[in-house]
C-alpha cells in the first residue's frame, strides 16, 4: 500500500498541491514562532527578553497553530473527498478498507513530511525577521542572538505530521465506511450534510466566544488593556465556530439570496445556485477561510484601534507590554491575512480545476464561455457574502465588549475604513481566482474535458 501511495502521489501531483501548500505554510508559521522559544533559551538572554519571546511564541504561535491545523484538515478532507470515484474503483477491485486507509494515510504522511522539510528555510528566515522586528521596536534587546533549534523543528514536524495523519485517518474512516456502490454514487452526487459532532463543537465554540465577550464587558472592565487578551480570543473561537458551521450558514444564505439572484441573470445564476446547493459541502470549505479572515482581521484591528485611541486620549505613553501586544496584533493579523489569502486561492484553484469535467458537461449542454464565467462569479459572490457576513458577526464578539471595557460605549469611535479595507480584500481574494482559473480550465475542448 505504501508503494501504491507513492505511485498515486506521483500521478496526481496536482491533486495533492493544495494539501501540500497548506501543510508547508502551516509548518512555516509554526516553526517561525516556535523558533522564538529556541531563541529565548539562549544563555545570554535576559529574563525580560525571555518573557517577551515566550509570550510571542505562545500567544500568537498558539492561535496560529489552531488555525493551521484547521486549514490543513480542511484541505486534506477536500482532496480525499474529491477522489471519491477513485476510492470506489479501488473498492471494486477488492481493496479492503484497511488497505485504502493505509494508502490515504501513507500519501498524507509523505506530503506532510515534504511540506515540513521544505518549510525549514523559510521559517528560519521568518523567525529571524520577527526577532529583528522585535529588536527594532525595542521590545527585546538588539543583542539577542537568533536561534533555530530542536523546539522549532520538533514542533513544526511533529504538529504537521500528527495533525495531517489524524486528519487523513478520520477522512479515510468516513470514506471507507461507505460500501463500494454507495461511494461511486456519492462521488457523483456529493451532498454529505453537517454532522452532529461538528454542530455540537461549533455551538460550544460559539458559546465560549460569547462567554469571553461577556467576561470582557463585565469582569475584565477594570483590567485596562489586559482585557484585550480575553476579548481577542472571543472572536477567534466564534470565527472557528462559524467556520465549522459554514455549510449550514451557506445554505441559509442561499435560501435568502436565491430568489432575487435567480431573477437577475437567468441561466447562469440558476446553475450557480444549483451548484452551491448541491455541493454545499465543497463550497463551504471555501467560505471557511473567508469567515476566519474577516472575523480575526476585523476583531484584532478594531481592538488595536480602540486601544490606540484610548492611550492617545489619556495622553500616556505605551508601556513595553502594550507595545508588545500591539506588535503581536499586527504580526497576528499579517499572518492571518497571508495565510487566509493563500489558503483561499489554493482551495479555489484546486476546487475549480477539479471541476473541469463538470464544466465540460455543462458546455456540451450548451453553456457559452461567458455563461460559465458568470456562473462561477455568482457562486463566488454568494460565498463572499456568506464569509464576510459571518466573519463580521464573529468579530463583534471581540469589538463590542472591548469597546465597552475601554470606553464605556459599545460602538467604537474607529474609522469605518479599516472594515471596508478588510471586506475589499476578502471579496477580491474570493472573487478573482475562480473566473481566472475557470477561463484556463475551459480552454481545453469540452469533449476532451469530459473524456479525462
Amino acid at each position, binding site marked *: 500500500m505504501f508503494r501504491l501511495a507513492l505511485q498515486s502521489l506521483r500521478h496526481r501531483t496536482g491533486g495533492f498541491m493544495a494539501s501540500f501548500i497548506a501543510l508547508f505554510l502551516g509548518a512555516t508559521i509554526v516553526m517561525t514562532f516556535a523558533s522564538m522559544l529556541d531563541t529565548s533559551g539562549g544563555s545570554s538572554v535576559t529574563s525580560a527578553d525571555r518573557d517577551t519571546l515566550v509570550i510571542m511564541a505562545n500567544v500568537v504561535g498558539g492561535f496560529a497553530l489552531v488555525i493551521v491545523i484547521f486549514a490543513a484538515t480542511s484541505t486534506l478532507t477536500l482532496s480525499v473527498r474529491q477522489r471519491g470515484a477513485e476510492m470506489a474503483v479501488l473498492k471494486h477491485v477488492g481493496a479492503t478498507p484497511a488497505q485504502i486507509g493505509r494508502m490515504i494515510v501513507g500519501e498524507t504522511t509523505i506530503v506532510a513530511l515534504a511540506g515540513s522539510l521544505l518549510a525549514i528555510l523559510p521559517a528560519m528566515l521568518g523567525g529571524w525577521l520577527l526577532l529583528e522586528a522585535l529588536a527594532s521596536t525595542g521590545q527585546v534587546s538588539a543583542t539577542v542572538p537568533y536561534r533555530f533549534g530542536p523546539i522549532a523543528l520538533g514542533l513544526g514536524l511533529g504538529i504537521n505530521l500528527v495533525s495531517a495523519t489524524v486528519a487523513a485517518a478520520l477522512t479515510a474512516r468516513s470514506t471507507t465506511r461507505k460500501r463500494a456502490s454507495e461511494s461511486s454514487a456519492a462521488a457523483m452526487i456529493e451532498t454529505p450534510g453537517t454532522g452532529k459532532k461538528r454542530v455540537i463543537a461549533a455551538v460550544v465554540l460559539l458559546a465560549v466566544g460569547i462567554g469571553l465577550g461577556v467576561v470582557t464587558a463585565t469582569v475584565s472592565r477594570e483590567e485596562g488593556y489586559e482585557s484585550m487578551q480575553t476579548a481577542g480570543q472571543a472572536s477567534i473561537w466564534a470565527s472557528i465556530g462559524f467556520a465549522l458551521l459554514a455549510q449550514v450558514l451557506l445554505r441559509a444564505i442561499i435560501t435568502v439570496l436565491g430568489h432575487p439572484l435567480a431573477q437577475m441573470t437567468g*441561466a447562469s445564476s440558476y446553475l450557480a445556485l444549483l451548484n452551491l446547493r448541491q455541493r454545499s459541502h465543497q463550497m463551504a470549505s471555501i467560505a471557511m477561510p473567508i469567515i476566519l479572515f474577516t472575523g480575526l482581521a476585523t476583531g484584532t484591528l478594531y481592538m488595536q484601534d480602540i486601544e490606540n485611541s484610548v492611550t492617545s486620549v489619556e495622553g500616556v505613553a505605551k508601556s513595553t507590554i502594550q507595545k508588545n501586544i500591539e506588535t503581536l496584533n499586527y504580526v497576528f493579523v499579517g499572518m492571518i491575512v497571508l495565510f487566509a489569502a493563500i489558503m483561499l486561492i489554493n482551495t479555489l484553484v484546486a476546487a475549480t480545476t477539479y471541476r473541469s469535467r463538470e464544466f465540460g458537461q*455543462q458546455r456540451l449542454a450548451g453553456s457559452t464561455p461567458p455563461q460559465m464565467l458568470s456562473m462561477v462569479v455568482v457562486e463566488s459572490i454568494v460565498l463572499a457574502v456568506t464569509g464576510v457576513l459571518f466573519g463580521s458577526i464573529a468579530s463583534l464578539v471581540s469589538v463590542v465588549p472591548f469597546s465597552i471595557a475601554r470606553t464605556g460605549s459599545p460602538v467604537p469611535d474607529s474609522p469605518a475604513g479599516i472594515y471596508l479595507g478588510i471586506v475589499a480584500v476578502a471579496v477580491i481574494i474570493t472573487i478573482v481566482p475562480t473566473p481566472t482559473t475557470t477561463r484556463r480550465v475551459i480552454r481545453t475542448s469540452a469533449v476532451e474535458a469530459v473524456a479525462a
Partner: protein
Amino acid sequence: MFRRHSGNPARAADALRLVSVSKVYGDGANAVTALDDVTLTLPAGSFTAVMGPSGSGKSTLLHCAAGLDQPTTGQVFIDDKEMTGDEAALTRFRRQRIGFVFQQFNLLPALTVLQNVTLPLKLSGRKLDHTHIRIVLEQVGLSDRLEHRPAELSGGEQQRVTIARALVTNPSMIFADEPTGALDTRNARSILTLLQEAVRDFGQTVVMVTHDPVAASHACSVLFLADGKFVGRLDNPTAEAVAERLTHLGDDIARQPVALGA
C-alpha cells in the same frame, strides 16, 4: 428511401452538408490526418450510421460536424447555415440546431432528470414549452423519474435522459457517438428504437457512430469510414450485411496500407 418530414417547414432539405472537410491533429512529423477531404450531404429526416475501424476518424467526423471541434479546412453547414465563429457563437449555434447523445451520457450530476432535460432551453433563454417537454419525456419513458439525479438511474435510463435532452430543443440534427457502447443488449435496443422514433415521429435527422453491426442495422443507411475517408455505403442495412462489409473493409486496409494511409 429516406423518410421526409413535412412537420417543420423552417428546415432545409439538407440537414447536414460537409464540404471538403479535413482535420489534422498536431503538426510537422507528428501530424495525423484524422479526416481527409470529406464531402457529405444528409437529407432531413434520415438516420445514418457511421462505421469503421478504431482510429478511422469516426469521432473526429462527428465532432467536426457537430461544431465541437473545428475542421482544419472545409465547411460545415447545418440546415444550410454555415457553422463558424468563436466558441460562444458555436455554442449558441449548437444549442439551437444540434442535439447530442454520448457514450458516457454526460449528464450534470447535480441536476435532476427534469433539470438536465430543460437545461439547454434555460441556457438559451427560451420559454419552456411544457407540453412539448411532457411529450418528449413520455416518449423516452421517464415521466416518473423527473426528480431523480443521474447517479440514481441505470445506464439505460441515463441514456434516455440524454435523448430527451437532445430532443427537447427540437434540433435540426442529432449526433450520437457510440450511444449504446456502455449499455447491455436490452437497453441498447430500446435506445436504438428511441432514435428511430426520433426520426419517424419527431422528424429528426440522426447521425450515429457505432462499431456494432446490430446497432447500425437500425439506421436507414450505413457509411463506412477508413483512414479518414468514406470508403463505402450500404442502404437498408441488415446486421449480417454490415458485419460482412466490415470484415472486407479490414481486408482492404490490410492489403493496401500505403495507398490508403494519410
